[in-house]
């Protein structure tokens, strides 16, 4: 415990000395996040400086092993670092699907060479990853995917289409589920990594109801993928995919936390009594969920979490986030209905509200998550 107290004191001093003041203000939107990658345009010198100094300490991924660019911290130390960053208001230095999704899967299923190369690049924010999972005919029934990878000796030849590929137009590499065998549904899937600049890859942003295009359609036309970019065994990709999905759901569940330190009711100004009561009921659920989130992470690190718990967390967190934005719209009244005025910051409230409707769809719908909990935790028959 004394060691941990010392670590806390040192960490606080180091963060205070090294985190630029601009990086201690709350992020206003996803756009304020540092995503890294070949083409990332830093918003300020401070953003780049913060990434560099944290990456050099391994603290973009504090609990990954040092040999892969991580900080080698214990779960307890990682928690202390997060607490101290929160106390000083430090922004996350790097947000990426490499950290939250691919990294954990590579740590478990990657070869030594893969871990050395890809994890180090992720930790330093050099490569931005996107996720090639859903297809037009494979949404909730993800294992029904048809994108084909043919064995051509030293490489696979990939043909097909993905959809809802988040930020595919800005990503450098993709982790992609492909069909290497048609003999078995789940047992014919493989997990490939490849460069989005490979010949034959094209992306097309999808305009959403929010007016934004965070998702793309991604097309593969005779894309050559070297065989050493297969993760795990051929036709065993579903295991990797599911493991990664657990981490994706864990990440998405974080939306339940909202990112505000204050209770919702303290941020919305004057509201009538009925709305105040609804908001208070929401704040109770939100604060309770944040306690659950803390407990879930502690259980994960202690190896006590049920493997299907990310599904419960994802369900609870995303439903909560949708409710938060419903209440924000109700509290804002007609002010929040303006779509492109400067006064409304370009319709931010309404666009954010619409964006949240995807929370309970992406990464597996709420109904899929409930089905997983019913089957794997409650062990209900036929689920």
């Amino acid at each position, binding site marked *: 415990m004394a060691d941990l107290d010392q670590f806390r004191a040192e960490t606080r001093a180091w963060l205070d000395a090294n985190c630029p003041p601009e990086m201690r203000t709350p992020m206003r939107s996803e756009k304020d996040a540092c995503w890294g990658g070949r083409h990332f345009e830093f918003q300020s010198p401070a953003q780049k400086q913060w990434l560099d100094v944290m990456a050099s300490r391994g603290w973009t991924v504090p609990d990954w092993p040092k040999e892969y660019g991580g900080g080698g911290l214990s779960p307890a130390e990682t928690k202390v670092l997060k607490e101290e960053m929160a106390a000083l208001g430090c922004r996350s230095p790097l947000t990426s699907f490499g950290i939250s999704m691919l990294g954990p899967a590579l740590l478990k299923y990657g070869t030594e060479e893969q871990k050395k190369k890809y994890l180090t690049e992720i930790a330093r924010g050099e490569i931005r990853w996107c996720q090639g999972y859903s297809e037009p005919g494979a949404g909730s029934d993800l294992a029904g995917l048809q994108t084909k990878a043919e064995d051509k000796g030293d490489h696979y030849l990939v043909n097909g289409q993905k959809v809802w590929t988040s930020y595919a137009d800005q990503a450098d590499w993709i982790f992609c589920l492909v069909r290497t065998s048609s003999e078995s549904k789940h047992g014919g899937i493989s997990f490939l990594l490849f460069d989005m600049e490979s010949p034959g890859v094209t992306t097309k942003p999808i305009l959403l109801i929010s007016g934004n295009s965070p998702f793309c359609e991604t097309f593969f036309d005779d894309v050559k993928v070297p065989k050493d970019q297969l993760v795990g065994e051929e036709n065993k990709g579903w295991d990797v995919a599911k493991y990664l999905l657990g981490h994706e759901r864990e990440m998405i569940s974080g939306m339940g936390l909202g990112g505000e330190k204050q209770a919702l009711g303290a941020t919305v100004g004057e509201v009538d009594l009925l709305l105040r009561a609804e908001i*208070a009921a929401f704040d109770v659920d939100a604060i309770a969920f944040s306690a659950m989130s803390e407990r879930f992470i502690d259980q994960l690190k202690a190896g006590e979490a049920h493997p299907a718990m990310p599904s419960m967390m994802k369900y609870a967190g995303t439903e909560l986030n949708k409710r938060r934005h419903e209440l924000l719209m109700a509290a804002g009244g007609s002010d929040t209905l303006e779509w492109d005025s400067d006064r409304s910051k370009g319709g931010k409230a309404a666009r954010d509200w619409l964006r949240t409707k995807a929370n309970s769809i992406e990464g597996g719908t709420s109904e899929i998550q409930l089905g997983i909990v*019913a089957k794997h935790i409650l062990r209900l028959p036929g*689920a």
Partner: protein
Amino acid sequence: MMTLTDDQRMLQDTVRPFMAEEGAIKTQLRHWRDIGCEDGFGHGLWKQFAELGLTGILIPEAQGGAGLGQVEAGVVLEEIGRNLTPSPYLMTSVAAVRALEGSAQAERWLPGIGAGETVAALAIDEGRHHDPASIALEARRSGNGFSLNGAKQFVVQGASADVILVAARTAGSAGETDGLTLFAIDRDAKGLDIDNVALTDSSKASRLTFNNVEVDADAVVGEVDGGWTPLSRALNAGRAGAASELVGVAAGASDMTFEYLKQRKQFGKLIGEYQALQHRAAHLYGEIEIARAVALKAAQLLDAGDPRAELMTSVAKTKAARTAALAVQEGVQMHGGIGMTDEHDIGLYMKREIVLGELFGGPRYHSNRVAELSGY
């Protein structure tokens, strides 16, 4: 860390089978209910609690207790809730012990509580809703002590208590937290009328009428006019404890229900095969996990003396009550007709939840408190 320590887990490993065996619905709740017991609980089991060291869980070691905290009390209460075990544990060993701690009255009452021989009650509510700041029962200076006049209700186990901790007003007016004083009063005090009533869940509570009840100055717990301090300690502990017990009620009811989904067949299929029920069951499971997490968080903050405990305790009480209400309502509905019978236990969970949900303030009281503590 929001996981139980090894010691806390050992306590849970001891209490869980003990409560399932000795505190079972059939031998405790139904037994005392069906014979019309005036106390609504068994003193034999209370003594067994003492032998296991549970009654003195919050009593300092120097005074013969275990010197443990709210987290450990919560571990015990969750098992009590799971088995609907009637006992004075929440009111006596948790709330009253916290009220008495550090006071001159502690030495008089704590040994008996630790030994499982003394039962204590708290007299707070005066109207049909919990609102401790509005306490108006009058305690007027009289000779060397005070004279009490007024009424209390929802005094859990008041007729069984050896000592009743009564929150009264010695100064100020209703609505103010200053000017309250907490008195430790003998059940047999002259002028005190106790109307012992059975509640929906077969537990007993009293309506008390104070008619010039004379008490000595040394009956005061803590400071005159400063009763809010011990009262707040008792309320925080009681609310967090009730949250833990409600988590147990929710867990007990839902376990029974999930089991039923795997046994009951209709249309030639187990009803648990229907997605309409699967999703509701899965949602309920998640709510219980969340309620358990926030009950633990509130207990940890109380034990750490963290100022956020006030807010978290109200969040925990609300979330646990709402969750337990969901669990018992889904429980009865999914059991169908059999769930409406007295013979089946699921309805007993529903009856316990409605009482425990109201005790120390219902979910609306505490949601409002969350709003106020959050600055709106």
